[in-house]
């Protein structure tokens, strides 16, 4: 601990009025930590509502953990009982229908929040120095979420559950030579079966807590560098920031409320909108439904898989589509963070956003022309964006003029009594 940190800790400690809190903090300096990280934490004053999606995602994680825990107390992880135990949750367990619809649609809302959070990071260059590790931890969370959602989707043991499990685990059969063994290892047998369901339940239970731990690291890394902001320039003076509480806490609360209203509308008015009817049919290992599609949040990657006519390359494309996010901080050579000041890259990025949505739509279509051709074009842009455009654009792009400080444009337009 540096001298400076020590001093700030003493200071916060001194400001603790409550003798009990002070007593605790002298022995376990956690109150001061919370005070520093969630009350005093200086946040750039120009952050917009896109900065609330991290808080929204955190709330979603907690909602998933709480509802998941009580669902797990009613659920039976056995191929003969799983489907009916979920039906029992829906019909007989008190409020089981509510808990399950919250959990089921919560996965979608969680991904929605995280996707917006991720695009936000891309648009405002939050992955750039000094926040590379912060970004990489975020991609780790994203991967863990995918694994969690996938294993969770298998649990109700409907037709879609079963065939999603089969197709996704079979991706590993593309590994040369040892592929078949790897898949048998994942299954614990010769097909997706009881051992598979059992281990998926265990993993589905465990992974959210791993995510929680990585979220802590993610936030710890954030609080080292401080938050980025829509101008993408560094904080230069205290005038550039506001304390987290009450400014950001109130802003985030409003965002969370609005998000929760949307979430509640889905849960109460369209609980099965994102659900696939085939998942209301119990798993049948002898018959694949005519159209199998993954959950919407996997569709862009699924479209990449199907766009590539070779099995191994298709699988590499699918995993590569996620993995390439790890390298974004090192692929982007421009020093300017925010797309506000990057007149060319801004449009390429918007095109990228549209491209991922287009791929998502294609992923839900049957594997036939013209969708395959379009998916190929979309895939080319997806990888071209990361591997060619992002590294090269800064050679020709002439960035717009950055403001001198964060507070300059803000304070020019508003008379802020606090600062006068």
């Amino acid at each position, binding site marked *: 601990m540096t001298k400076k940190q020590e001093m700030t800790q003493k200071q916060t400690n001194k400001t603790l009025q409550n003798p009990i809190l002070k007593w605790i903090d002298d022995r376990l300096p956690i109150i001061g930590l919370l005070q520093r990280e969630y009350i005093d934490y200086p946040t750039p004053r120009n952050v917009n509502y896109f900065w609330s999606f991290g808080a929204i995602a955190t709330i979603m994680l907690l909602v998933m953990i709480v509802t998941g825990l009580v669902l797990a107390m009613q659920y039976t992880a056995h191929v003969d009982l799983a489907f009916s135990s979920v039906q029992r949750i829906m019909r007989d367990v008190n409020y089981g229908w509510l808990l399950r619809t919250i959990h089921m649609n919560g996965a979608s809302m969680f991904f929605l929040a995280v996707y917006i959070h991720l695009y936000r990071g891309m648009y405002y260059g939050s992955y750039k120095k000094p926040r590379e590790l912060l970004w990489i931890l975020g991609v780790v969370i994203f991967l863990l979420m995918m694994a969690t959602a996938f294993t969770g989707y298998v649990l109700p043991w409907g037709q879609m559950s079963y065939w999603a499990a089969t*197709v996704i685990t079979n991706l590993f059969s593309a590994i040369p030579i040892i592929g078949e063994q790897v898949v048998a290892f994942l299954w614990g*047998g010769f*097909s997706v079966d009881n051992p598979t369901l059992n281990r998926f339940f265990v993993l589905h239970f465990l992974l959210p807590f791993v995510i929680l731990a990585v979220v802590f690291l993610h936030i710890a890394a954030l609080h080292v560098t401080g938050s980025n902001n829509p101008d993408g320039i560094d904080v230069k003076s205290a005038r550039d920031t506001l304390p987290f509480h009450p400014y950001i806490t109130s802003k985030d609360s409003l965002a969370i409320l609005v998000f929760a209203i949307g979430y509640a509308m889905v849960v109460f008015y369209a609980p099965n909108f994102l659900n696939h009817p085939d998942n209301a049919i119990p798993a049948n*290992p002898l018959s694949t439904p*005519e159209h199998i599609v993954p959950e919407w949040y996997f569709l862009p990657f699924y479209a990449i898989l199907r766009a590539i006519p070779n099995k191994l390359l298709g699988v590499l494309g699918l995993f590569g589509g996620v993995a390439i996010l790890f390298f974004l901080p090192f692929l982007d050579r421009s020093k300017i963070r925010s797309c506000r000041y990057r007149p060319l890259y801004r449009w390429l990025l918007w095109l990228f956003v549209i491209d991922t949505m287009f791929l998502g739509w294609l992923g839900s279509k049957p*594997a036939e022309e013209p969708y395959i051709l379009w998916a190929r074009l979309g895939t080319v842009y997806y990888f071209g964006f990361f591997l060619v455009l992002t590294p090269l654009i800064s050679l020709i792009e002439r960035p717009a003029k950055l403001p001198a400080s964060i507070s300059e444009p803000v304070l020019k337009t508003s008379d802020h009594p606090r600062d006068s």
Partner: protein
Amino acid sequence: MVEAKIGGIESENNQGKSGQGKSGQGKHDQGKAEEHQASERREFLGLLAGATGAVGAAAFSWPLIDSLNPAKDVLALASLEVNLESLEEGQSITVKWRGRPVFIRHRTQEETKQAEETDWKKLRDPQSDSQRVKNPQYIVVVGICTHLGCVPLGQKEVAQRGEYGGWFCPCHGSHYDESGRARKGPAPLNLAVPPYEFIKDATIRIG
């Protein structure tokens, strides 16, 4: 080697007892050299302990990993007899073996002829029909698409059978011929032929 090491530890202990250990005890050069040696030895011991621990942990991880592989009871349930007497020409049945579907089709004469006459050397997974059947009337294959594991269509007489008259996998559009060979789409391999034998004229044992 061993003696030297013990010596090293002793000298370290002595130094520890005699107080500050490190510097300024008015020792001669030899003392310093010994100290240097001692720290090198300490490093080596640390490395040795670390390496032993790592090997131990790696060895212990094997039972953990292997416990996830197919268990003995799963491996044991692995043989199945099927009577094909009632299977008419042109009909197919699906049986479950090791938790997966096995397709058995009593091929028509044209189908068999077609399968045998295909120029198989040019296929992506080159196999002749005779390498894939025991009795050319019956084709027996594991009904799992070699792309990503869906069950192809084609067992029902009215079902889609794809462009090559065998099976068609709708998941990502793979076509198989009358011999279960991959002909079109992303499937890299032919439908697998399970181990089986004819134990009577029209009875097979799979597994």
